[in-house]
């Protein structure tokens, strides 16, 4: 099957406008007769559900949490990009497009990325109109900050909790439609299958997590905004419930899964403290605006710090290795995430890690505290040469900018980051891979759409900071509501989709069989036992650095673990009740399949690109080595077992940007 990306004709800058002018529309009276299911209520799903309901469609929205507001978009910290050029520093739609394609290591689709950059400015307008309280300057206008991999200030933010504020904006738009009866909200529900009727997605099977009932829901189209699959690593910055199940079930029903190996390992997370660890906590990339990353130059100092004989503040500047500033003078501490993570790993592998486990580097705010402190002392008429005054004011500014992050750090690590540098290490954070979609954000299954982190489309092999929020809201507010109309225009005479059909029977039976197997299995080990084992294989063999031998081992090990899981997992309780272990078991079962496809994809991609680093393919300086013959999207078709998946290639063409070595030096 040939993959048709359906990119509109015409010059890049006109594609989206021309496309909108020529698609089919559904008239308002007919929208009332059309149902759309939206699964997931984060920035993508929430904004899509609200907008589709505003347009007049009947929306059924699903989330596994007890409220749409709890989706994991809520935890995004640093900000959202938009090409507003409010700072007059040379930003433009083209530059945001260029930065995103380059940041993604030339592995994303030009037309989609350009459209994303084009609608980015509208997102900020829309959010402000909804009452999202972005940070402002004293003049009353919106403030910006910088993120990695770019040379302009285009990131809008609300302290260290931008995701929260944007999600509450989308949630409020949903609430208005729930109040009007245009969205029917199904909280504490988990989607467990897609129902395909006559080749089209026509519904889902969902489990009510409170009663355990398995339910049938039909619609004319199904939209998945179900987030990423970072929890395949067990430890990640994702929420405990974040899962791949919806996307994976769609894959098993025919939707191609694209680039599963593209994973973002975020450079600034709080290091693992022990075996009990259940999740990892991110410290926003925005901290790299003001924090400087370093390890000691001398091994003696490293050892003394680990043993507690020296404090980091005892090491003089000349004995510190600010390795990002040394290696990448043009971008310094603000290199993209993949580059910063690998550089931290390089130093720690060389033995310079600064904590007990040897897996941590310093993120130091002392210079920023001094710089801001002097400025504020000057403005307020205090002595800017008095270190005490400077420190007090400097800490005050840092608290205003990052207070909640510093508090989170202190609660977890039990050290005060205003006084001593933070210790950080890379951790799994985001997945660029996901369901393959065309320009319309439709998968190759007609009527099945995928938006936000769950799809593969915009970030190539590495996502730039503050672009996930942008993509989620662009897809949900401004792209999908248009493109889905073109598809639904053919359904105005279809009428309600019945659920008493053989396709629904079969899908429901499928789900019930899995649930019953798990609950009756009565094996020896808990779900977490298997999940942790899977996570270790993934981290050791499919993590920040990968090689062919390790990936081949991972494929065999994951398949064996999956077999063991189905034979030996123990799920307590019964099916028809609130049973979190059963919900977890269903999710881990899918991770045990995805993990294998992930390794297969990483093995097949014999190059290094963005977050995918193959040790065999690197430059003499240790940078990622892309290979032109891999300039394609790897879209996998399900054929019964992950090892049998068939590869389809969508070749990537770059007509508006020159593909060259990605350098941040």
């Amino acid at each position, binding site marked *: 099957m040939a993959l048709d990306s359906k990119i509109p004709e015409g010059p890049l800058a006109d594609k989206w406008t021309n496309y909108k002018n020529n698609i089919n529309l559904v008239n308002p009276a007919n929208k009332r007769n059309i149902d759309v299911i939206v699964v997931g209520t984060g920035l993508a799903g929430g904004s899509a559900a609200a907008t589709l309901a505003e347009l007049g469609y009947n929306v059924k929205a699903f989330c596994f*949490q007890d409220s749409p507001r709890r989706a994991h978009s809520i935890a995004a910290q640093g900000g959202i990009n938009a090409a507003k050029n409010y700072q007059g520093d040379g930003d433009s739609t083209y530059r945001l497009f260029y930065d995103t394609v380059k940041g993604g290591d030339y592995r994303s689709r030009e037309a989609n990325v350009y459209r994303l950059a084009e609608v980015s400015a509208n997102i900020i*307008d829309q959010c402000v109109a909804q*009452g999202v*309280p972005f940070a402002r300057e004293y003049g009353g206008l919106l403030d910006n900050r910088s993120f990695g991999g770019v040379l302009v200030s285009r990131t809008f933010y609300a302290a260290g909790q931008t995701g929260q504020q944007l999600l509450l904006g989308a949630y409020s738009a949903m609430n208005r439609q729930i109040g009007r009866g245009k969205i029917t909200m199904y909280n504490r529900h988990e989607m467990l299958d897609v129902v395909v009727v006559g080749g089209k997605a026509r519904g889902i099977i969902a489990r009510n997590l409170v009663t355990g009932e398995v339910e049938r829901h039909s619609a004319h189209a199904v939209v998945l905004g179900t987030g990423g699959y970072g929890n395949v690593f067990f430890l990640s910055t994702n929420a*405990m419930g974040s899962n791949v199940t919806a996307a994976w079930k769609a894959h098993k029903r025919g939707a191609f899964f694209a680039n599963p190996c593209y994973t973002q390992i975020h450079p600034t997370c709080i290091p693992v403290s*022990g075996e009990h660890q259940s999740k990892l906590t991110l410290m926003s990339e925005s901290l790299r605006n003001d924090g400087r990353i370093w390890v000691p130059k001398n091994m003696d100092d490293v050892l003394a710090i680990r043993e507690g004989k020296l404090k980091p503040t005892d090491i003089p500047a000349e004995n510190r290795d600010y390795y990002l500033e040394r290696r990448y003078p043009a971008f310094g501490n603000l290199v993209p995430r993949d580059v910063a993570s690998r550089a931290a790993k390089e130093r720690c592998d060389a033995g310079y890690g600064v904590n007990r486990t040897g897996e941590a580097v310093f993120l130091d705010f002392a210079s920023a505290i001094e710089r801001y402190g002097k400025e504020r002392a000057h403005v307020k008429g205090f002595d800017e040469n008095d270190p005490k005054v400077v420190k007090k004011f400097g800490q005050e500014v840092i608290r205003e900018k990052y207070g909640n992050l510093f508090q989170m750090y202190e609660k977890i690590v039990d050290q005060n980051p205003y006084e001593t540098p933070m210790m950080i290490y890379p951790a799994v954070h985001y997945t660029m891979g996901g369901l393959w979609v065309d320009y319309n954000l439709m998968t190759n299954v007609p009527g099945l759409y995928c938006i936000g982190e769950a799809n593969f489309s915009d970030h190539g092999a590495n996502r730039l900071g503050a672009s996930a929020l942008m993509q989620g809201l662009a897809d949900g507010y401004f792209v999908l509501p248009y493109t889905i109309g073109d598809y639904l225009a053919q359904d105005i005479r279809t009428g309600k989709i019945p659920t008493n059909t053989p396709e629904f029977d079969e899908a429901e039976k499928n789900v019930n069989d899995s649930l019953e197997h798990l609950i009756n299995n009565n094996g020896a080990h808990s779900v977490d036992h298997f999940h942790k084992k899977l996570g270790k294989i993934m981290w050791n063999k499919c993590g920040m650095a990968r090689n062919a031998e390790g990936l081949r081992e991972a494929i065999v090990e994951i398949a064996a673990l999956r077999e063991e899981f189905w034979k030996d997992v123990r799920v307590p309780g019964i099916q028809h009740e609130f049973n979190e272990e059963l919900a977890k078991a269903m999710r881990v079962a899918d991770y045990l399949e995805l993990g294998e496809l992930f390794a297969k994809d990483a093995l097949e991609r014999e190059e290094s690109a963005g977050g995918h680093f193959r040790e065999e393919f690197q430059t003499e300086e240790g940078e990622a080595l892309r290979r032109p013959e891999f300039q394609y999207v790897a879209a996998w078709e399900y054929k019964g077992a992950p090892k049998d998946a068939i590869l389809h290639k969508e070749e990537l063409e770059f007509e508006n940007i020159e593909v060259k070595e990605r350098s941040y030096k």
Partner: protein
Amino acid sequence: MKLTLKIWRQKNADTKGKIVDYPIDGIDGDMSFLEMLDILNEELINKGDEPVAFDHDCREGICGMCSLHINGEPHGPDKGITTCQLHMRMFKDGDTIFIEPFRANAFPVIKDLVVDRSSFERVQHAGGFISVNTSGNTIDANTIPINKHDADEAFEAATCIGCGACVASCKNSSAMLFVAAKVSQFALLPQGKVEATERVLNMVKQMDEEGFGNCTNTGACEVECPKGISLEYIARMNREYLAASLKG
């Protein structure tokens, strides 16, 4: 650390619950409170018992999913944090810890420590929004400058995570702090002023219908709020409500 946990167990909404004792050993100060419960649950599963059900998701203090009344306090001892941010270093060897669900008529128990907070949802449906449709044509975000002080204050109100600790801490189970935070966020911004009258009336009406109690200004909610939402927002909502009632 060796601890004795006294945990509320309740099969479902229709059965009575009771406190059950669980001894636990080998707890480290660097573990989070919920990681300690993970360890207990792993032990229970391995013994063939049912694990303790509790709500949690992000485990970094922002989603608002976790709850728990720990030794009589919502989100436990320590200030300005949620249960998932509570670490075991706050306890000492030999301690007994009482763990119960949030208690309020408007938050019925689903199972063990899990409660149903959909009453909060319905209050939001009644008016927790600005009626503006999505379009690519809203006015430019910088057209209306907003005083930094007002913007910051609106933001502070908007940091509410909807966890329900305010209700759980209140002797009257009042939801005033939760509702006041939303009403104040919008009342402080020019975009929100257009519908301010209807919003406060509708949200307060729904709050009363859900069976939350009255506010008697004891201030427990402000003390226990993991995000430090200020009582001043309740005063602001009362002013908004009075003005709206006079208009209405």
